[in-house]
């Protein structure tokens, strides 16, 4: 985004303190740091993957051994012998990460904020999380991360992964293929811990098989082709680690420790299963709630420093982190990360006061003017990367009430409701005209056409009225339509602040009222909404995470009924029918059946292949023709606040989305304070 470019560079050149500080770094800092290869100036260093390469490759290209140096934070511990020297901590096959603009200097505390211990914390997790592979900042290319390299067999049924020689957990214990085998066999496939193997590790009806080949090599075998796995690990799965420290968790498993049950009870848990659930969680933030996190090793860039409480959580740099910069300094540069838990209303105030270094998650666009005007005082820059979509409206075709169901399951009604919405006005009134009106379709996939995006998004109340007339919803003298059965019809639209604003509800319901639909809008809690959605008693559901290409490859569930696990949109009884092979639930209509069929094949086709395109466009067609999900905006920006004190922030940071792990593609481990 050119705009981002300009504003960032303007701030960079404009801040006198910043330049003065840079100059002082150049004079007092190490000489090689000033001239090290960066993304902006690679100095002839060629990378096989964007912005990174292996240490061996780097040394071969420069023709000399890279002298490693570590964070002075650990100097005392090294001196006293508590920690080995940096050469012994960094893997022999370390990853060289080219900083964006300069080799940074150590120190500082990166401050962020979340809503609560387990609410809105993903962005902070994305600052330190690592996984086997990562997605680069072009949001397309998969790059090695914890894994050194990988190789698929020809039909994508077998994946061989190589790890880094000498890679260590944060407690100094070697990280090996055993840790991956342990994760799959003893956690994922452990029937006591997971009653059903999570769908990520199930293909073709069978769970994954994992084999250790040697200390640094591991092979995954699948019953059917599974080309989407790496995309999942790099995007939607970036919040989970596909490995676990075997040496640490073994004593808690009954299989390895016959006394695990008694020990768990002695520690106050119901049993070993419950105790394990408290200390291990696939969502890595959830592990950092109890004091146990202090002893649990990790591969992440930062480790928990103090016991977490309801006000804050703090992390300190991992002395065994596996990445170095191009001058041989071990990453991360920033000593500490601090996460505060705040009421969402206080986010803006906190940013205005300059108390936050990076924030984008859960920031509403309508706060942009306030944030922009406060840039000088808070010493930050606010930009608008794309990152939000919708809101989406889904009429519950499987609602329990039969007369409501008759209306909502009629596609003419859904079409009329889409046509009644004035998207241009919504965009102007609610989103500063920055949105792009669009029907609900997956984002950034090659098989969606402009005709799909523009399907029934024109504001046409007359056509909407005609469709409703055709349905037999007669307009009364008071301007309110009856149901097709001639009885009064009321649409109860319950929404939660998480998925809509009261302004959106007011505006859209006023459009629907104009075509004669009697709408009552109510705000309810997210918890209640999800319960009602799961029980099929809500009229409208809105909790849809629009699929992006990388997430769609591996998580097609978001594009077939019920479209969401946490807050189902429509068709819970249909899924039950399919899952139980007709024993329970309700028989889905033909189109839904077809979607279920297609989703089974989808997982096994190669992204970009002809079959992939065929299946993809058929799914889009089915979803659009039935207008299951009514879209409003195809793309909306989200405020991104970055402190002016930070450097190595990419200029092309123009997407900030949950599916990509918020800040994850932009490598927080090489951010540095000026």
């Amino acid at each position, binding site marked *: 985004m050119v705009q981002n470019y300009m504003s960032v560079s303007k701030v960079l050149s404009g801040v006198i303190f910043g330049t003065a500080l840079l100059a002082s770094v150049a004079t007092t800092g190490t000489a090689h740091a000033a001239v090290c290869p960066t993304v902006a100036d690679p100095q002839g260093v060629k990378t096989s993957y964007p912005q990174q390469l292996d240490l061996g490759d780097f040394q071969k290209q420069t023709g000399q051994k890279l002298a490693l140096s570590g964070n002075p934070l650990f100097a005392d511990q090294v001196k006293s012998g508590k920690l080995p020297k940096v050469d012994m901590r960094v893997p022999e096959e370390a990853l060289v990460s080219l900083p964006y603009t300069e080799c940074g200097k150590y120190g500082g505390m990166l401050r962020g904020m979340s809503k609560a211990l387990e609410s809105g914390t993903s962005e902070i997790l994305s600052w330190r999380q690592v996984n086997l592979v990562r997605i680069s900042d072009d949001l397309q290319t998969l790059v090695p991360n914890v894994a050194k390299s990988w190789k698929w067999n020809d039909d994508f049924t077998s994946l061989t992964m190589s790890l880094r020689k000498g890679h260590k957990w944060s407690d100094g214990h070697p990280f090996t293929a055993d840790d991956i085998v342990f994760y799959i066999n003893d956690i994922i496939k452990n029937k006591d811990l997971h009653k059903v193997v999570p769908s990520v590790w199930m293909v073709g009806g069978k769970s994954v098989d994992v084999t250790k080949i040697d200390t640094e090599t591991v092979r995954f075998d699948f019953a059917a082709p599974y080309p989407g796995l790496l995309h999942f690990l790099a995007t939607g799965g970036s919040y989970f680690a596909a490995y676990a420290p075997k040496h640490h968790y073994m004593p808690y498993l009954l299989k390895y420790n016959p006394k695990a049950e008694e020990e768990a009870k002695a520690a106050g848990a119901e049993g070993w299963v419950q105790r394990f659930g408290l200390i291990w969680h696939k969502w890595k933030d959830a592990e950092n709630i109890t004091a146990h996190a202090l002893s649990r090793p990790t591969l992440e860039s930062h480790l928990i420093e103090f016991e977490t409480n309801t006000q804050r959580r703090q992390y300190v740099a991992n002395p065994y982190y596996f990445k170095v910069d191009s001058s041989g300094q071990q990453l991360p540069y920033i000593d500490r990360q601090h996460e505060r838990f705040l009421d969402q209303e206080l986010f803006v105030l906190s940013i205005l006061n300059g108390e936050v270094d990076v924030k984008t998650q859960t920031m509403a666009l309508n*706060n942009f003017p306030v944030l922009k005007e406060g840039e000088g005082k808070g010493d930050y820059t606010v930009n608008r990367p794309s990152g939000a979509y919708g809101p989406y409206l889904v009429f519950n075709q499987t609602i329990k009430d039969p007369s409501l169901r008759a209306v909502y399951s009629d596609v003419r009604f859904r079409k009329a409701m889409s046509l009644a919405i004035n998207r241009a006005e919504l965009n102007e009134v609610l989103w500063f005209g920055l949105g792009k009106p669009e029907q609900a379709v997956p984002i950034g996939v090659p098989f969606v056409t402009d005709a799909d995006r523009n399907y029934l998004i024109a504001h046409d109340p007359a056509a909407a009225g005609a469709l409703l007339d055709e349905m037999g919803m007669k307009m009364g003298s008071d301007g309110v339509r009856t149901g097709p059965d001639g009885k009064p019809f009321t649409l109860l639209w319950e929404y939660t602040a998480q998925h809509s604003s009261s302004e959106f509800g007011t505006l859209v319901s006023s459009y629907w009222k104009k075509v004669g639909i009697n709408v009552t809008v*109510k*705000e309810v809690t997210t918890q209640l909404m999800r319960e009602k959605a799961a029980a099929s008693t809500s009229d409208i559901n809105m909790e849809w995470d629009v699929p992006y290409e990388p997430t769609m490859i591996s998580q097609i569930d978001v594009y077939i009924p019920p479209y969401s696990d946490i807050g189902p949109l429509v068709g819970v009884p249909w899924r039950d029918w399919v899952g139980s092979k007709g024993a329970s639930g309700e028989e889905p209509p033909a189109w839904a059946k077809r979607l279920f069929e297609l989703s089974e094949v989808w997982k096994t086709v190669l992204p970009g292949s002809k079959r992939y395109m065929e299946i993809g466009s058929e799914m889009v067609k089915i979803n659009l023709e039935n207008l299951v999900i009514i879209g409003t905006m195809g793309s909306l920006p989200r405020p991104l606040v970055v402190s002016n004190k930070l450097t190595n922030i990419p200029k092309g940071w123009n997407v900030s989305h949950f599916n990509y792990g918020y800040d994850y593609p932009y490598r927080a481990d090489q951010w540095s304070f000026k």
Partner: protein
Amino acid sequence: MTSPVLAIPKLKKSNRRPEMATQWQLMWWKFKKHHMALVGMIMLSLLVFSAVFAEILSPEIPTERNNKYLASGPMGIHFFDSEWNFHLRPFVYSRSTKRDPVTLRKIAVVDETKLWPIEFFVTGSPYKFWGLVETDIHFFGAKGGFVHLFGTDSLGRDVFSRSLYATRISLSVGLVGVTFAFILGAIIGGIAGYFGGIIDNLIMRLIEFIRSIPTLPLWLALSAALPREWSSLQVYLAITVILAMIGWTHLARTVRSKLLALREEDFTVAARLSGCTDMRIILRHLLPAFMSYMIVDVTIAFPEILLAETSLSFLGLGLREPAESWGVLLFAAQNVRSISHMPWLLIPGLFIIVAVLAFNFVGDGMRDAADPYSK
């Protein structure tokens, strides 16, 4: 009743004939001497007037959106233009909005060359007056443009019009709530005080029980128990009843203690001996004996109920959008964005302050006036 002749207050104005005045006249004279109470009375009358005629007085209907003037500030009414020419007909300057290209903030642009004269009894959006008469006459409006005395909210709705409609709902919540509380309090307190004994005991324990329940959690629970399908109006009625069900206890206690004393008086005994029914004794002989006290109690209960409704709506539990009440309007203003960029959204808060103060002043004046023989 006590004889007025024995305790004639010394009034300065000679043209007054206190000895000839009725009880109500004496009270009015006394009340008038309380200036704050008089001001409060005038403010209240204005509020009630605007609540009653909200539809006519407001230039727009509250759900109407002005897309040409979103999230923009109050428009001042002028008599003098930018060149100091006097206009007999007041006017507002023509306005439009533009978007700041950097901050994206809506900025109102005032065009001082173009005047929109204020006209009275203009035609505007149609509405049903009191839900009965369909008409489109509004008390005032700007010819050729629009007038937003208190600015607009982020959807372009007129804050002035919404405030007037909110006044109607909030005041009537108070009125209905207080009336309910008054009737319940007088009857239940009356029964307890008049009959005494076991009935009194039971009722007093019930009151103590109700008063011991912390109010906020109680409101939370009750409003959560309201069916979700209810329309705003139904919720509103339910909330007034809920407020009243808590509000009656205070009055009931007072009535009871007064009655306990009065039922031993000679005139009560005389009435009983004359064969009056219990109900007649309570209603005809006992209650009027301290009616003035009850009026005061009611005026003081008003602000309590007003604030309760406001805080419930403010917490998002009472009335909800698109209904208008002071609490609902303030609820929409409780964020940094509104406070820093749209401070006019806080104007409904002034209505609350004015109303609560006015009720308190009037109550204060009434307390003095209720006993016109005191000095």
